């Protein structure tokens, strides 16, 4: 992980080894590490990490490991999902706010009726082959990327 960046990334730092790129972000996720970019100017957390902060425009963004627990900010169920997800329908989806304040969207492994705003959830990282989505969905460079989902806590 990058040490003490106080300014913009150099071109040679933007490679697939870096979690500031999607391959690097998903490599880390496959190892159980969820990374965000944290803006050192305004504190905003960005998932996945990227070179600039959308809130304030600063390029002083550093990597920060995120907690795997959070709460549901909003949720729904997808009754007619895109075709690769047909076997999972109806599928609960939520925007989750992690305990750090970072947010990300993901499937929830519970029925709609069991979810509510504020419900506690825990991130789980899955091998895409285990999830039940059509492998045709994956672009060539996505084939090894894990899929994430959330389990209800408690």
């Amino acid at each position, binding site marked *: 992980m990058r040490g003490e960046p106080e300014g913009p990334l150099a071109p040679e730092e933007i490679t697939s080894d870096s979690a500031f790129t999607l391959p690097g972000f998903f490599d880390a996720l496959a190892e159980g590490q969820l990374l965000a970019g944290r803006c050192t100017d305004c504190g905003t957390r960005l998932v996945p990490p990227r070179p600039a902060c*959308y809130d304030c425009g600063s390029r002083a963004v550093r990597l920060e490991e995120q907690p795997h627990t959070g709460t549901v900010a909003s949720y*729904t169920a*997808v009754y007619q999902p895109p075709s690769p997800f047909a076997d999972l329908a109806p599928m609960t989806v939520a925007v989750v706010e992690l305990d750090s304040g970072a947010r990300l*969207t*993901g499937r929830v492994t519970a029925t709609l009726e069991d979810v509510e705003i504020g419900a506690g959830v825990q991130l789980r990282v899955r091998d895409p082959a285990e999830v039940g989505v059509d492998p045709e969905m994956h672009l060539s460079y996505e084939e090894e990327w894990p899929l994430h989902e959330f389990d209800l806590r408690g």
Partner: protein
Amino acid sequence: METAHIATVGASPVGRTDLPGRDLFSRALAEAFEGLPDPAAVVDAVYVGAQSERYENQIMQGTLLAEWAGLNNRPAERVEACAAAGALALKNAVRDVRAGVHDAVLACGVEKMTAGGTEGATNALAAAFERALEQRSGVTAPSQYALLARRYLHETEATETDLARIAVKNHRNATANPRAMFDHEVDVETVLGSDPVAPPLKLYDCAPVSDGAAAVLITTPAAVSDLGTESVEVAGVGTAANTLAVAERDLTSVEGADVAAGRAYEEAGVGPADVDVAEVHDAFTVCEALLAEAVGFAPEGAGVETVHEPAERSAGWTDVRVNTSGGLKARGHPIGATGLFQAVEGYEQLTGRAGDRQVPGADTALLVNEGGLADAHTAAHLLRRAR
């Protein structure tokens, strides 16, 4: 700077048709140029709003439609921001005319959404969302907006019944619009009892999958005089892009629409209270409420009152009439053409051609077209009756 005017408009029927995209465009252009010289004698450049090549396996829509209009060797290009593509074509046409680059520019939009069935449309529209984390979680257009709707119902006093009333109002408006896809009214019970799509959104909260094309000619005032048509001034334009992923946005405040409409108001020297009629992007019922608040018509949490007569609305509401065309919900939503269908309604309202849905004395119209989730892209236009 030149002023830009809408000199003429045309549109195809909206809905499920047996015409491919280019033929829908031919219908729209034939109406726009009825009684006028050949497009080749008038049009300097073309912009085409089109969401996706998945429907007809055709890119190069600028070239194709210019060819079909008989416009050889002229600038012609497609623009894309999902459902905001139509208004982006309009924005580019206005910019070129204002800058003196061209005297007359055709802004058109086309979508043949029914070509791949419901599944084809679902997949094509899902491409508008963030790929790495959100598409790969199986999101759809209704599910993304349902996340906004759920949160809106949580944070405000509004109910699912209030959202249903928006669909009822827009279906009623559409019965007075001969261009509309639907010509039947619905009641609140029908909306509430319709099939779940992405709770709290149900089938009747969602705009339909539609085919359609629309064409709007933007010219200088001098070119309007030459054509002898009745025109409407495009007095203000504003666009803004704001976050692709739903997780990164404020779920109940459509900031980009506030910014884009604010720019359009400022250019025109008007405010929300000056707007008589508005076409806002009701791809889902909740959008109409969110946008009414974002563009300054309604106080926070009171956006669902678009359905009420002005005198019955809460304090702080303006007197604007919203989605007199029937909106995306009932006029229909052929994605890349929708922003131009909004312009067609604005033109008809401000030239007194809106028939049974005419708002008496309408002088100022706001068009708000959005692409992606909510304000992932907003394009706003302020139209004013020509003086």
